[in-house]
């Protein structure tokens, strides 16, 4: 090294060091900071979800619980059900209605509205509810909440009695609890005086009073709702009656809600600004939690072991249970295994091979509840039968094996094979061919290590019984697409079992009747399960006001095993900054920012 080069190198090194120092200095304090003040809260939206719908009338493609929660903060529902009281019930504080009086014959309901006002000072009236009713009646096929035969098909008339009182008549007598919780709760009064127009330049009128006009209004509102960039600025979305308004809505997914100063309902916002933050992955969200930039977030169940790393940073870990069940539907029309699945003893053998208690503990780290039937078990409810609660088919691979060998199956290699064909008591059952192997394949949701572990554990325990179980994985949308209702002759009917329950397979409305799940021809009865006795029980749950109807349904399906019952995972493992009071986490999977407040 020549003496002449040394100073130059030093100068270079000094310049580099100075540059690095400047960069580091610039970075100090540039990280995101916690919002833990009484004025704002940072809430983490689920990973890879972007809020994309403001209109409180969801179309099927935009039916997402987070969109619904945001809309409900802007336009309060007529009858709001949530878990804020500890159990799922009508929360009158965040409802526009104050009373719902059912006729003695159960064929109509008269609803009374509270003394409420829109943000522009106009009163909330029966006409605003009628406006919603007319739009839905005219364009029901595009409404996400529509199921043929149910609302609005079974609502025969809407009669305005006064500005705060109206009557809806039904096509027959209904269980009032079911009607309130599953149908009337879907109504949201809309500002007719601001929204009843057929185009941006059209004047407000009574266009909704004709079917054609209502369709035009529907199309206009839906069209306006496709412009996310206008959510914070379009005058349409400024006429609100909920506790919050939209301050900003970024196309990248960040939504800022601001307390509505004109709100006159029972659930006034405690926190002025709510920042709903989007995250690409749970890992990115957990990093933000560790950095303290999120007040109300979540962790992956597999990270429960690291919960102390969050509690040490001033957070509490609070599991959020869901009003849901989790299961694997059988395809009863599968050409190979459909006949086997139709045998109750075979389904019993499968169910008895699954140790839900151990799965909930070992696979889900204690963040799941064993579920043995069609009524959610993660929460106490009057709907749950003693039969379902006590698990009619306790785990026993020895029992399961005996069931199969007692019905004409012989273990060959490690898999049971039907060797005694026929429909006798000790035979394989009607339609099961000689030599049929008890070998099933599941198309399971990918992307979750918990689900992968669950499937592997199920595979192991089924193998002990002599039941083969192969696992194929795909993204959840593909699982749903590739496991449709089908008939045996269709090429699409090759699927045997389906799993889309990483976050719970089916979230119920407040009243957990199984009409679309297990009724013959039900829209979500993917495997085409059919039993006339069950159909009658399901019908009774919607028409009888007795809780015994739900319990009878719960007991029957716990025993009939229309699907493989699996542990019910928590909706979310929440991580909440100490001092942020939530009241309760709604098991209907909605969030209610007006219920949050800082306590210190």
């Amino acid at each position, binding site marked *: 090294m020549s003496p002449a080069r040394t100073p130059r190198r030093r100068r270079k090194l000094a310049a580099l060091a100075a540059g690095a120092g400047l960069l580091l200095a610039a970075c100090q304090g*540039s990280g*995101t900071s916690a919002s833990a003040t009484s004025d704002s809260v940072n809430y983490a939206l689920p990973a*890879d979800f972007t809020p994309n719908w403001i209109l409180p009338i969801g179309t099927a493609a935009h039916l997402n619980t987070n969109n619904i929660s945001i809309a409900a903060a802007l336009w309060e529902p007529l009858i709001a059900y949530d878990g804020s009281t500890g159990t799922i019930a009508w929360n009158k504080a965040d409802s526009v209605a104050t009373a719902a009086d059912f006729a003695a014959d159960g064929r109509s309901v008269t609803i009374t509205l509270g003394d409420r006002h829109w943000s522009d000072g106009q009163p909330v009236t029966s006409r605003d509810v009628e406006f919603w009713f007319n739009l839905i009646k005219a364009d029901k096929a595009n409404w996400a909440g529509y199921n043929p035969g149910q609302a609005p098909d079974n609502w025969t008339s809407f009669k305005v009695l006064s500005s705060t009182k109206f009557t809806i008549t039904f096509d027959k007598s209904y269980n009032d609890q079911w009607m309130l919780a599953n149908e009337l709760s879907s109504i949201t009064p809309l500002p007719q005086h601001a929204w009843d127009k057929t185009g941006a330049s059209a004047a407000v009128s009574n266009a909704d009073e004709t079917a054609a006009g209502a369709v035009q209004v529907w199309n206009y509102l839906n069209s306006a709702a496709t412009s996310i960039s206008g959510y914070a600025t379009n005058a349409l979305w400024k006429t609100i009656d909920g506790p919050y308004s939209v301050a900003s809505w970024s196309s990248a997914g960040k939504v800022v809600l601001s307390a509505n100063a004109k709100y006159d309902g029972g659930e006034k916002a405690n926190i002025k600004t709510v920042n709903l933050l989007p995250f690409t992955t749970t890992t*990115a*969200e957990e990093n933000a939690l560790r950095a303290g930039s999120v007040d109300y977030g979540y962790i992956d169940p597999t990270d429960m072991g690291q919960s102390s790393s969050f509690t040490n940073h001033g957070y509490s870990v609070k599991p959020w249970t869901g009003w849901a069940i989790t299961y694997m539907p059988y395809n009863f029309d599968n050409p190979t295994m459909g006949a086997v699945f139709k045998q109750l003893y075979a389904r019993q053998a499968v169910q008895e091979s699954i140790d839900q208690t151990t799965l909930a503990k070992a696979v889900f780290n204690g963040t799941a509840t064993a579920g043995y039937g069609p009524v959610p078990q993660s929460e106490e409810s009057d709907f749950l039968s003693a039969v379902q609660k006590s698990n009619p088919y306790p785990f026993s691979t020895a029992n399961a094996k005996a069931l199969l060998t007692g019905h004409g199956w012989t273990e060959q290699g490690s898999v049971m094979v039907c060797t005694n064909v026929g429909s006798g008591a000790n035979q394989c059952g009607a339609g099961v061919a000689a030599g049929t192997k008890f070998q099933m394949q599941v198309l399971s949701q990918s992307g979750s290590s918990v689900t992968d572990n669950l499937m592997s554990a199920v595979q192991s325990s089924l193998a002990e019984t002599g039941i083969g179980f192969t696992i194929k994985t795909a*993204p959840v949308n593909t699982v*749903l697409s590739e496991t449709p209702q089908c008939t045996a002759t269709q090429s699409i009917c090759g699927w045997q079992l389906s799993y889309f329950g990483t976050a719970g397979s*089916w979230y119920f409305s407040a009243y957990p009747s199984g009409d679309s799940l297990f009724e013959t021809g039900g829209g979500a009865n993917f495997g085409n399960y059919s039993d006339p006795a069950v159909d009658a029980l399901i019908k009774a749950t919607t028409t009888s006001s007795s809780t015994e109807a739900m319990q009878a349904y719960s007991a029957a399906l716990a025993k009939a095993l229309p699907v493989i019952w699996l542990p019910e995972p928590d909706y979310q493992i929440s991580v909440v900054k100490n001092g942020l009071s939530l009241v309760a986490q709604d098991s209907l999977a909605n969030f209610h920012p007006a219920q949050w407040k800082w306590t210190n």
Partner: protein
Amino acid sequence: MTARYLIGRLLQAAAVILVVTVIVFGLLHALPGGPARGILGPHASAAQIAAFNQAQGLTKPLPVQYAYYLNTLLHGDLGTSYTLNEPVSQLIAQRLPKTLVLTVLSAIIGLAVALPLGMWQAVRRNKPTDYLITALSFIAYATPVYFLGIVLVLVFSQILPWFPSEAPQGDTVLQVLSDPAGLVLPVVAGAASMVAVFSRYMRGAVLENLGEDYVRTARAGGDRPRAILWRHVFRNSLTPVVAMLGYYVPVLFGGALVVEQLFNYPGMGLLFWSAAQSSDYPVLLGCVLVISVATVIGTLLADVVQRLIDPRVQAGDEA
């Protein structure tokens, strides 16, 4: 370089893009079941699924669907996302600049480090420092971007709270660039493998050139080693590196996907990934189209630059 050559290459590029759209369109629509149930979710009724398929034109024969797609594409319409409620062109216009910021910065920094490093290694070939850097390059090359990103976040965001764990959250390029601290970790994660790959290429190319006759001649003529290295060897060694750079465009996009996921930066990579998860055909096709065009342009530019910096390439073609 002739206009004829350029026109020929552009026509080739258009044909490649067309073939790519045919393949992707065919593969997507070959999926059993279609996207409706996946998009609408388990609660959707049969009527809603039918209405969705009708509205999206999914009930028409596949060639008709493709012809319709191509027609709308030629009119500049990439369709509307099934799930994100926005036109695909708008989504790409929002996300692509953000990804370009990340990838271009990663590429610039990656090359700025890799090229001198490769030259330095070549000059000090088979010495301990060369072995050390070679070993580090192999480690960097073999380290998945995801893992490297996690390590960077752990060390430089959580243990040493120097940089934020999230990339800039602004919607526009200006907003993104106004938060340089947020860009440090994602750019380093994106640049690391590039440094590893291109320093190896550069080292090899420089070594090859150092053995050429023109170097010996220059040395014999009394030129200083440093001048030979920078004036002659560097320029000639760039030819294979530039060619490689063109083909590296899809890799950069692939890397961006991982970086965007890890650093909470919704760009093109994440858009593509989410669309693949949700069978959002219009978005998938739009992303594939953009990546194809970028790759084709990348290789075309690489060819052009190669010809500019190395007249032998052009001479070879003309011969």
